[in-house]
């Protein structure tokens, strides 16, 4: 064991540099998708932009802790959701005491009441809900529920990835998703079908 062979050392450094460039390029290629999730997790576009920038700054610093070949989008979103928590978002409302919680079919039933059963056969029936009302309803969900609904319904993550990103058990993902979607549909029914 003497001095490291300078040629081997140079090759090692070059190889690390290549890995790093590859990591950065792969991460940047996902920026649109990361932004889309961020945009629904926070209220304003400015907050979403800040959050995405902070996420990439941290990702580029800690790129060595990413294992090549694993889900990079999930890895980035784990950083993002942690940063979002660190931003000290407001204390959680306690969803357990919300009085009314309708079933899974609530919105469909309300639509059927106002448009007729057959209306449910048309894809377009959902377009009676305005896009704004969906965005508003999503942003009104308690934070814990919104995180899960956004990751699964907008980010298109499976339960296992969502659980890993948020560092919660899969069962919790499923129950929050279930209640979150019920609340969402309840809200949509109240707001859009008045």
């Amino acid at each position, binding site marked *: 064991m003497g001095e490291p062979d300078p040629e081997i050392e140079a090759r090692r450094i070059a190889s690390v540099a290549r890995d790093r460039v590859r990591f950065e390029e792969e991460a940047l290629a996902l920026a649109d998708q990361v932004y889309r999730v961020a945009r629904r997790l926070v209220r304003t576009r400015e907050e979403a932009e800040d959050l995405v920038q902070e996420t990439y700054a941290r990702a580029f610093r800690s790129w060595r802790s990413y294992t090549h070949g694993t889900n990079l989008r999930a890895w980035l979103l784990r950083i993002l959701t942690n940063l979002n928590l660190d931003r000290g978002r407001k204390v959680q409302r306690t969803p357990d005491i919300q009085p009314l919680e309708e079933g899974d079919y609530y919105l*469909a039933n309300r639509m059927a009441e106002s448009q007729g059963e057959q209306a449910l*056969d048309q894809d377009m029936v*959902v377009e009676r809900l305005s896009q704004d009302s969906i965005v508003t309803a999503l942003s009104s969900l308690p934070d814990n529920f919104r995180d899960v609904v956004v990751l699964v319904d*907008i980010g298109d993550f499976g339960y296992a990835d969502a659980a890993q990103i948020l560092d919660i058990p899969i069962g919790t993902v499923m129950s929050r998703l279930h209640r979150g979607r019920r609340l969402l549909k309840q809200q949509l029914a109240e707001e859009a079908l008045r």
Partner: protein
Amino acid sequence: MSHGPCDKCEELLQGYLDREIAETERAQAESHLDGCEYCRRRYRFEVSLRRYVRTTSEERMPPGLMERLTQLRSVEG
């Protein structure tokens, strides 16, 4: 009520929509849907709603953000 709320089918809805359901349960849901127009219409509605919720979020990054992200790289350009 002329058609029951089909509790079991409603319970399977989430896993079915998320493609996170055991094969036996999927078969169970599908055989129920085959014979139950009430649930079939509601599943269909849920599928459309999911798609629609997703389209409300198909928002591209604001111009300039990509540039700022690129500047955060260790080696620029």
